């Protein structure tokens, strides 16, 4: 069937780009209607990508690629273009839907900010870059947009630039992800030189890395494949906040909350997962790389979940939860369950965006992010509370909400291949349910304390422009899971192109349900309206609690082992440069000067000594003539 909408894929990223250009270049003209332009452009992109998705769902599953030459000389042929597969059609929808809702939400959230235009311009640029990343047909273009989303994330984290914390967080985010990016860059270098015809497009990669045989046919050893996969994964680690490069993501919460929802929860951070899924052919050929992916993912999932338990900042808790859930996705990919990983990405995007926007709604009303200062004040915001509850339940994995199905898909994959990782997944799921119920109960249900300092003005529900996205996302968080249940595997067939069997695993379903409910139960027991006070139990395991609260001192370790040595080395080299290198130069110069001064002694300005000197010179010449110049006489 002839594709109708697929040929207009290019228009999807162009719409937000135009919004960005208009908002940047004609800032003064469009000042009032910034939000309108932002929402409008992303809505166009959204409608178009939904049409494309529907088209692909109904009929054509062939890959649609268009390339134009970008830079070409000698052996280099870099191309730009777009490619449409089922996977990125799905990603397009995720990105544009969340982006549209966030734009809409931001209209209310940022209403009072005088730099609104800049904000919406940045979001436009981000949406463009993210969509460009998704439809990239080759690794180089993906890298370009990969960097661009990174810089947008940087700009938006540092949006409130006056705050030193925002500045530090922006810088940290950029540098930490850059470490990963260089991994990806090196992977590109290796691929460029080892791929036939220096091809970097995903189709060629798919062909070369189709199996061990084809790979060795093109002269790529298994070890090299492991290296390539690991380096690509390093890029994913940076972008998706996996251990040990995760520290930037929680700090990124310094940015405006809509941004946290869009970039640091739903879309950009998932780019790492998308990258691994896109280059999965390479990973598949290396057991080592797969094991690395699975272990890093599993470890991050449980590691971040424990940290989330002890945080006090509402957005930080959600951020660590994001890190943990991304770990989940990586775990799935590492186990070979691409569909499960992508499925979790899909559901997670909706409920995590929902949670962040809900948190933003609360923060907007109470002007604090500390959950103990909010302390139940969120209860008067009915819509926010209910939608937040749905999001929290979905994240905790309570059936039949979306999070349950995706988590179940991952856990059953783990159950089949690696029981240890399954156990880790289960514990992480329990912790997730626990910290989410902690968050929910403290913020929304706790009895109001008698002595509350500061303003105690009544809390109002946010305006409709902010609650509508919440409701839409809540609906999506409920229903998104039904596309891929244990009883229906069409989604997997659609994503991977390989017919799949249903993966009903009753044990896993029961275990994950029990775990989720018990986590929530424990949360209710401690933090519920009649629960015990937190310090009761936190005092019991004080050292451990501190360790978790301080995020395992990872930041401090970075400071100690990376930042300080770099600074010290820089300072030492500075001294070296100033006194040794420049010292040698100065010494040479002064030697020359001194040597010259030696002769200036003679030049004392006394006419008579000049005369005497010339007399000496004359005599010497005469003497020379007498001694040597025999022939001249």
């Amino acid at each position: 069937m002839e594709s109708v909408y697929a040929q207009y894929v290019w228009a999807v990223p162009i719409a937000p780009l135009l919004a960005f250009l208009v908002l940047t270049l004609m800032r003064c003209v469009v000042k009032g209607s910034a939000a309108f332009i932002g929402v409008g452009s992303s809505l166009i992109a959204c409608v178009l990508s939904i049409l494309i998705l529907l088209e692909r769902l109904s009929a054509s599953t062939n890959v649609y690629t268009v390339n134009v030459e970008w830079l070409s000389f000698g052996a280099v042929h870099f191309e730009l273009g777009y490619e449409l597969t089922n996977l990125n059609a799905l990603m397009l929808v995720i990105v544009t839907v969340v982006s549209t809702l966030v734009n809409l939400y931001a209209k209310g959230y940022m209403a009072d900010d005088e730099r609104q235009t800049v904000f919406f311009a940045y979001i436009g640029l981000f949406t463009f870059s993210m969509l460009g990343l998704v439809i990239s047909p080759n690794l180089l273009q993906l890298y370009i947009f990969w960097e661009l989303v990174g810089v947008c994330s940087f700009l938006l984290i540092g949006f409130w630039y006056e705050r030193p914390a925002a500045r530090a967080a922006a810088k940290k985010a950029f540098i930490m992800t850059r470490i990963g990016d260089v991994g990806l860059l090196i992977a590109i270098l290796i691929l460029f030189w080892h791929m036939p015809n220096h091809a970097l497009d995903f189709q060629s990669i798919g062909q070369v890395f189709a199996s061990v045989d084809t790979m060795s046919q093109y002269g790529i050893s298994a070890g090299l494949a492991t290296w390539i996969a690991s380096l690509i994964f390093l890029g994913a680690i940076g972008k998706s906040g996996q251990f040990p490069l995760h520290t930037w993501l929680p700090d990124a919460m310094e940015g405006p909350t809509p941004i946290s929802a869009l970039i640091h929860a739903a879309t950009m951070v998932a780019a790492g997962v998308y990258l691994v899924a896109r280059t999965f052919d390479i990973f598949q050929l290396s057991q080592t790389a797969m094991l690395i992916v699975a272990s890093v993912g599993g470890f991050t999932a449980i590691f971040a979940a424990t940290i989330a338990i002890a945080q006090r900042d509402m957005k930080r808790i959600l951020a660590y939860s994001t890190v943990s859930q991304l770990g989940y996705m990586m775990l799935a990919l590492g186990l070979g369950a691409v569909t499960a990983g992508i499925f979790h990405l899909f559901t997670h995007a909706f409920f995590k965006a929902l949670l962040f926007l809900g948190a933003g709604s609360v923060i907007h009303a109470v002007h604090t992010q500390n959950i103990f200062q909010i302390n139940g004040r969120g209860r008067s915001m009915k819509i926010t509370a209910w939608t937040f509850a749905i999001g929290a339940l979905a994240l905790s994995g309570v059936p039949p909400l979306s999070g349950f199905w995706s988590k179940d898909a991952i856990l059953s994959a783990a159950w089949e291949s690696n029981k240890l990782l399954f156990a880790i997944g289960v514990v992480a799921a329990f912790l997730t349910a626990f910290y989410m119920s902690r968050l929910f109960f403290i913020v929304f249900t706790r009895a109001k304390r008698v002595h509350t300092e500061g303003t105690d003005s009544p809390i109002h529900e946010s305006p409709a422009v902010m609650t509508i996205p919440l409701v839409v996302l809540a609906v999506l968080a409920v229903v998104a899971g039904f596309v891929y249940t244990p009883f229906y595997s069409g989604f997997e067939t659609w994503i991977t192109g390989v017919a799949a069997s249903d993966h009903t695993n009753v044990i896993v379903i029961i275990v994950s349900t029990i775990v989720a409910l018990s986590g929530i139960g424990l949360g209710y027991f401690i933090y519920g309206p009649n629960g015990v006070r937190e310090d009761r139990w936190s005092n019991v395991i004080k050292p451990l609690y501190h360790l978790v609260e301080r995020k395992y001192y990872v930041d401090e370790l970075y400071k100690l082992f990376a930042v300080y040595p770099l600074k010290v080395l820089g300072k030492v080299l500075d001294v070296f440069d100033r006194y040794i290198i420049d010292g040698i130069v100065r010494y040479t110069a002064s030697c020359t000067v001194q040597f010259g001064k030696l002769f200036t002694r003679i030049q004392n300005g006394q006419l008579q000594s000049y005369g005497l000197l010339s007399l000496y010179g004359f005599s010497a010449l005469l003497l020379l003539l007498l001694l040597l110049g025999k022939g001249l006489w």
Partner: protein
Amino acid sequence: MSSMLASYLTLAAILFCIGLYGVLTKRSAVIVLLSIELMLNAVNLNLIAFSKYGVVPSLKGQVFSLFNIAIAAAEVAVGIAILIALYRNRATTNVDEFNELRN
């Protein structure tokens, strides 16, 4: 004949050396100028000696020495003028104190 030339030349050499000694050692600029005159006259003596007893005797040497005397007179006039100007500025004619060349 040649002995006559030798004695003239010797006298001229002695005069020249006395002049040179004066130029190099005397503190007073006036004496220095006088010594320069002495050296010039030594040269004049040579010129005349050669014009009379040289290989090709000719009057040119004597004419040339007359030129020399005239120029020496002019030179002394200029020299003394400079000296006076200097004396007005520095109130001394001590050559040791004239080391402006150095700076």
